[in-house]
């Protein structure tokens, strides 16, 4: 029989707020702008049964099913970013040139169980 462990909504996989301040990583001398940005991260459980809101793949749905039968042998699917958005940064490079660069996949918009 399946082992069903209730998960409170706050523990469910979803984007969590994370503001990265470039000063915290010591990059303030070469990054001109922005000084930081809202990067976010994914955290939480992917419990059985996977609901629509958890954006699970077919594989993840089956993995949660197997996990519920064998929690020690098979882990839950991972809570990971499934939609990210870009950020543009202005900085000095290794030759003192000013560079404006567009970076993809810098901000977590949506998480899912994969």
């Amino acid at each position, binding site marked *: 029989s399946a082992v069903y462990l209730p998960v409170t909504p706050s523990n469910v996989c979803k984007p969590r707020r994370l503001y990265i301040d470039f000063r915290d990583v010591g*990059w303030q001398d070469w990054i001109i702008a922005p000084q930081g940005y809202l990067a976010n991260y994914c955290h939480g459980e992917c419990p059985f049964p996977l609901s629509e809101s958890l954006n699970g793949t077919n594989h993840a749905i089956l993995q949660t099913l197997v996990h519920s039968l064998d929690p020690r042998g098979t882990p839950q699917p991972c809570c990971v970013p499934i939609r990210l*958005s870009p*950020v543009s940064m202005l900085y000095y490079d*290794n*030759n003192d040139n000013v*560079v404006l*660069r567009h970076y993809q996949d810098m901000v977590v918009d949506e998480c899912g169980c994969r």
Partner: protein
Amino acid sequence: GTGEDLKTQERLFLNSLGLSERPTPSEHRRVPSVFWRMLKRMSTREMEARENDPCMVLEYGVRGNIVRFVQDQGRLLSGWSGSCHGCVEKHLFFNMSVLQPVEQLSLARLEVQFQLDVFRTPMFFLGPQALSVSVYKVLRVTLRGANHEANRRLVLSKSVQLEPQSGSLTLDLTALAESWRKPGRNYGLVLEVQPHPAGALARDSFMAHHPGSALAFGTAEASPEFQASLVAVSLNPLQCRTRRKR
């Protein structure tokens, strides 16, 4: 151990951003206003329209995800009173090896900003003035130097109006800058600036009527300062894919 791990992680991340190591700028150089405008526009667009092509640089009308303001590393070849008689020659050198091999160069635009030093310029030069500007590609460097005629080829020659004390020149150098990316092929440019003949006539007329002015000013030439830079737009196709609708 943890410190080393942090350094390794940082290096991996910086590499993915196209940097060999953490930059340590020697001085905080000026950021052109167009870069601030682009940053603001990109940030707004990122918020509004993630589905569109994010790698179009609207300000220059080309595709790219990297815009560089490449600093000139050249040197003055001849000043106003030097060998080129009433003109200034400067060797311009832009280090194009800062572009990674994977990057596709979309645009390279030379921008030269002229400005008259009002404290060192005779009064009759402070009205609208024209300068003759010539740009030469340096083909090779021999003992005779980059500014020797045999070592260079004319790329452009035109007049630049200083209104009222400043003026600018822009020149598309995309093809040339692409050739500079090959190892050992970048000898740079020579920029030659001289007062327009009409300005020289006005100067001679002024000097005829005010013979003491040259002594008063030290020199009777208009002596515009100029700064050259290269705006390079490039595309890293690995870091700039168009998002497809699911």
